[in-house]
């Protein structure tokens, strides 16, 4: 099998995230991803994967690979993207997170958490405090993601809120993250200058889309055999010709970006 290019936005929320727009339904996300020329998306709601299967189903027979995941909030309030090839793996991590996630959502304060079908039918409302933090350490979360075969990525590492550097001030050298996600506000070069100890890490860009217009506004080009987590992991390490490069930032069509807890 030859290597091909895959454009990926590995950080997309759905209407399950309390801070995401309610229009973030599975088919709408898939349509926008295809329109933006993406080959791969990662679905990662805050501390939950309950809409992941719906997005996978919405992408069936479309030319789009959906990695199922969560954006876990660790006890240090660091956001970690966990991405998997199979929804079941994401659900297993979700089980662990749910066991350690205290509190109930207050929709008035944080927003609605809508569980939907592929067709955006409302299946129910998640009542957990998904905006909260799991009582799991950063190390434990990364370890648990890897035990399930997933990718562990420090989300929006350059942002002051909920990014690993904003919360901890540094990236622990021994922390086996697969990659570090940067927002469109910085470049790997600038980031390496500011945080020389992170110079050896792999960087990617994701949109952290909370609205449809955000989908694909930040993305990464991968050279892979196929769009799987194992191949992406090889690209992060530069193994066997697998590579990645950051796409130039694209402006969303809408001027205003809704930005909530992530």
């Amino acid at each position: 099998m030859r290597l091909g290019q895959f454009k990926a936005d590995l950080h997309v929320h759905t209407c399950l995230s309390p801070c995401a727009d309610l229009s973030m339904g599975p088919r709408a996300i898939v349509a926008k991803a295809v329109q933006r020329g993406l080959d791969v998306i990662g679905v990662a709601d805050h501390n939950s994967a309950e809409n992941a299967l719906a997005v996978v189903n919405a992408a069936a027979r479309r030319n789009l690979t959906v990695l199922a995941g969560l954006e876990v909030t660790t006890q240090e309030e660091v956001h970690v993207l966990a991405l998997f090839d199979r929804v079941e793996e994401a659900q297993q991590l979700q089980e662990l997170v749910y066991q350690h996630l205290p509190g109930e959502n207050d929709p008035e304060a944080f927003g609605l958490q809508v569980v939907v079908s592929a067709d955006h039918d409302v299946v129910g409302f998640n009542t957990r405090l998904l905006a909260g933090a799991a009582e799991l350490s950063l190390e434990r979360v990364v370890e648990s993601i890897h035990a399930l075969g997933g990718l562990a990525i420090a989300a929006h590492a350059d942002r002051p809120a909920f990014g690993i550097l904003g919360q901890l001030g540094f990236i622990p050298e021994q922390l086996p993250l697969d990659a570090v996600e940067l927002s469109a506000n910085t470049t790997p070069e600038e980031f390496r200058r500011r945080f020389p100890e992170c110079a050896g890490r792999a960087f990617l860009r994701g949109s952290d889309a909370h609205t449809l217009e955000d989908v694909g506004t930040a993305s990464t080009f991968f050279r892979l055999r196929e769009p799987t987590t194992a191949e992406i992991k090889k690209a992060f390490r530069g193994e066997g010709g697998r590579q990645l490069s950051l796409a130039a930032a694209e402006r969303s069509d809408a001027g205003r970006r809704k930005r909530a807890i992530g």
Partner: protein
Amino acid sequence: MTVGEVAEKLGLEVLTEGGSLAREITGGYASDLLSDVLAHGRAGDVWVTLQTHHNIIAVASMKDLAAVLLVNGRQPEAEALAAASREGVPVLSSPLPAFALIGELCRLGIRGAA
């Protein structure tokens, strides 16, 4: 003592319009982890923090805190200010670092849970 009286005595910058500066402060809590404030903040507390993300307003509103006091002259995100106005949560800023600001609050008689 009310939020407005504390603001005046300590020279705090009031960043929100509206919000009840007449609210009586019954205690204080300091933390930079939102989940910690969700767990331990009490209604009527002033919350001393350096976090400026707009979820601080959701936390303050959910816990019925009296006000959010930002340290080191930090300014909240625009979206946080909009949410604060909507929710009626006063947000104030002090040039002091947290330790010094909390000392001043204690001097005024505001206490945290022991």
